[in-house]
């Protein structure tokens, strides 16, 4: 299976990683002036990263992109808006609720809330707060993908929706408790994982190519943008209610 293309991709991955290595080495040697601890692990670990990135990009073109696109075409041909929206919602909710980065942020948010006296300082109170937060974010991402898919179908201009979303964030910032604002802003960034992004992008672009009168470049992108925007609003709302 090792062919020219694979080797080329391997070289590309190595180049992608080179800047990180340079930054780490330069800072460690010239600025911090400390020896690099554990050179063997560093070199071996970097090799793993290069191979991993190469496999990921190879697999992307073979699986995640075709799956997302073929499902978009199948739904468009079937013409069932209901099932398309159910699919969009499940994809958003299902991929977010178990996202490790989100779990970490939710736990940290629970400690902040407990320290700030918003909830009781017990394990149960913190756990239920963290779970509530995760469900809120997952719900908002599901909602975001649904809105994004409706937008592609209807051909609404993206920027009006995003700008209204920004206004929503600004208004919520005024009313939300100060402790939640930082977490809310960050939660927008952590929802989109390495597997979700290619799938959702391919779904959007596939839908925009399958529906007549839509341009994949103009209408196909934007699903991720919704998925990063709505969690901010929903998390601030959660902070106000709790």
């Amino acid at each position: 299976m090792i062919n020219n293309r694979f080797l080329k991709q391997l070289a590309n991955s190595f180049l992608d990683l080179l800047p990180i290595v340079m930054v780490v080495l330069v800072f460690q040697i010239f600025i911090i002036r400390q020896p690099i601890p554990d050179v063997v692990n560093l070199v071996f670990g970097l090799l793993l990263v290069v191979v991993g990135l190469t496999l990921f990009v190879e697999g992307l073109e073979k699986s995640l992109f075709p799956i997302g696109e073929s499902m978009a075409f199948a739904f468009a041909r079937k013409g069932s808006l209901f099932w398309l929206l159910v699919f969009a919602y499940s994809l958003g909710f299902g991929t977010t609720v178990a996202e490790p980065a989100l779990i970490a942020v939710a736990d940290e948010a629970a400690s902040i809330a407990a320290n700030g006296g918003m909830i009781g300082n017990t394990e149960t109170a913190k756990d239920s707060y963290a779970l509530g937060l995760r469900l809120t974010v997952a719900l908002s991402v599901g909602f975001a993908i649904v809105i994004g898919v409706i937008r592609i179908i209807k051909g609404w201009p993206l920027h009006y929706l995003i700008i209204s979303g920004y206004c929503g964030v600004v208004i919520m910032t005024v009313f939300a408790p100060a402790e939640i604002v930082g977490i809310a802003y960050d939660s927008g960034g952590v929802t989109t994982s390495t597997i979700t992004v290619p799938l959702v992008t391919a779904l959007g672009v596939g839908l925009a190519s399958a529906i007549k009168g839509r341009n994949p470049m103009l209408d196909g992108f934007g699903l991720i943008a919704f998925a990063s925007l709505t969690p901010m609003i929903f998390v601030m709302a959660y902070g106000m209610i709790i």
Partner: protein
Amino acid sequence: MIGWLGSFWETLLGTLRDVLPIAAIIIGFQVFVIRKPVHHPKQLLIGFVYVLLGIALFLEGLEMALFPLGELMAKQLTASEFIQVDASLRTVPWQAYFWVYIFAGSIGFATTLAEPSLIAVAIKAQEISGGAIRALGLRLAVSVGVAFGISLGAYRIISGTDLYLYIISGYMIVIAQTAFAPKMIIGLAYDSGGVTTSTVTVPLVTALGLGLASTVPGRNPLLDGFGLIAFASLFPIISVLGYAQLADWRSRRASSKNKH
């Protein structure tokens, strides 16, 4: 070696567990709703195995090589011995953290360039635009945005100014740029904000934020450690829109020159 295999196995299982809900949703809809056989099932399966193995190897390698070192560096750079200021002072001038800003910017730039989700979106954009948008150009534009965002975010933690002021001003800039940027880039620019922060960037940036918030006098790590990710998601939108505006302006200037 055995120890390494064990930890790789755990990472692989963890990745599998994260992917399971997605796979269940896709297979469920394929079987019960779409009810059509998929094309090239074997190739899809192989590709899926590649993705799984790729992510697991990638994470394992990062865990082994970069995260410990990156987190250590974030701690060393923010430690008061390195900053060399009088510990009895209540406030430290923000210029004392010069190397922190440089480090924040360079690590933000470098990690974003290696971010797998961004690579995926960039490949797709190049494909869809028929090469008008180059994958590497887009990734560089996003990386510059993240670099600037994280440096500014570090400054915010050090200076102790309010997060929302920066975010809201950022939004104003995005809204103004949206009015003038070429329509074709808008969706992609908005999306690039969300994809910058995943596997590589989040752990390193979080370590930097917490390191800063716990060593800068007068900052509370719980409250002030947050917000760097928000910066890293906002500024790429500005830089990608700006990049497109610049390209647009240059091509228009070139074509108006040709006419004369």
